[in-house]
């Protein structure tokens, strides 16, 4: 199979672009080939229409009927424990890491730089040792 994840009713999506960038939402209905009706009661995304390219699909999915109300979406999300599951995904972790990096102060950036240098130095010396011994 070429694709593992599909856009379908109940698919949890991560919003990449737009006003609500960085939040997750659930696909509630398809408007046309390029637009989705989306709702994210737990993450503060209002029920709105998004373009397909604004959104990235995640592994997570809930069962909801097409066009169901926000209340139902919220209930199903909490039942499936989607917020906690999403936080474990690598996408969520990468997004959080990006935010953390942007919020680093000058001293913290210096510390990160030093840590990187030391780590890379260690890696290079071990690789060199391994090359020598082989």
């Amino acid at each position, binding site marked *: 199979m070429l694709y593992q994840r599909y856009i379908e009713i109940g698919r949890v999506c991560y919003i990449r672009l737009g006003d609500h960038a960085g939040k997750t939402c659930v696909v509630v209905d398809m408007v046309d080939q390029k637009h989705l009706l989306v709702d994210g009661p737990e993450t503060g995304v209002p029920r709105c229409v998004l373009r397909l390219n604004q959104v990235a699909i995640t592994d997570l999915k809930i069962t909801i009927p097409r066009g169901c109300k926000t209340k139902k979406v919220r209930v199903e999300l909490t039942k499936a424990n989607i917020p906690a599951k999403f936080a474990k995904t690598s996408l969520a972790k990468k997004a959080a890491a990006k935010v953390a990096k*942007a*919020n*680093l*102060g*000058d*001293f913290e*950036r*210096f*510390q990160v730089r*030093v840590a990187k240098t030391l780590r890379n130095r260690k890696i290079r010396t071990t690789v060199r040792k391994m090359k020598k011994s082989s």
Partner: protein
Amino acid sequence: KQWYQRRVRGVLNYYTNYYYKSNLRMVAHKVRNSTLPGGVPKLSRSAVYRKRALYKRAKVQVAAVKVDVASTKTKQVQGEKNGGNRQVPLQKQPRFYPTVDSKKPLNNRKSPKPTKLRGSIVPGSVVILLAGVHRGKRVVVLKQLPSGLLLVSGPYKINGVPLRRVDQAYVIATSTVVDLPALPEIGDAIFKRKGKPTKNEKEMFIDNTTEEPKISAEKIALQKEVDALVVPAVKKVAMLQSYLKSKFTLSKGVYPHDLKF
């Protein structure tokens, strides 16, 4: 304005007296005036006077307190036949009057205020110098001097920046703060430049070969004293010494407006 008076909304500069009702609630007296569109009171002061029947109220006369101010003083005069003393006015009339009455400029009541220190700069905060010989260096702020400038020290031992004055406009404040102990009193006086020696006719042809040292011994001693207090405070924080040693640089993909300091 008295404690029993409240401002009335809708009428300019109007206060009503309040009175206590039987249930101890404060109730306003009726307002006799109102405002027309444009902020103009409807009734004039005399009209309101009439309406409120203030003529019926007892007028309280407060006697003007007269203060006797001495305008002359007695001065003793020498000489037998000069009458012994004379009355001299305290305020003398001017000897000259200008031919044309010129306009006096209005009183300037502006007074210089001490420079407001940025909220992000505190004694002990690490700061990046943006201009001067030491640009790019990270430095510790000791305090704000009375002149408004920041007193800054490398410390000299760590990055070669001595006790220096820096304007806060030429500085990026970082969020790092060093816990400084009590420092000796330092003012703007140490930084005052010594004037050039005035040319004296006698000394015109004499060479002044003895040059004064560029940094006074007093400054060097003060620097050592301050560093002895600041350097241990810096060493307490991990990696802070090497941080102060390093310089702030921009590289590819680094945009200052996106950075948080």
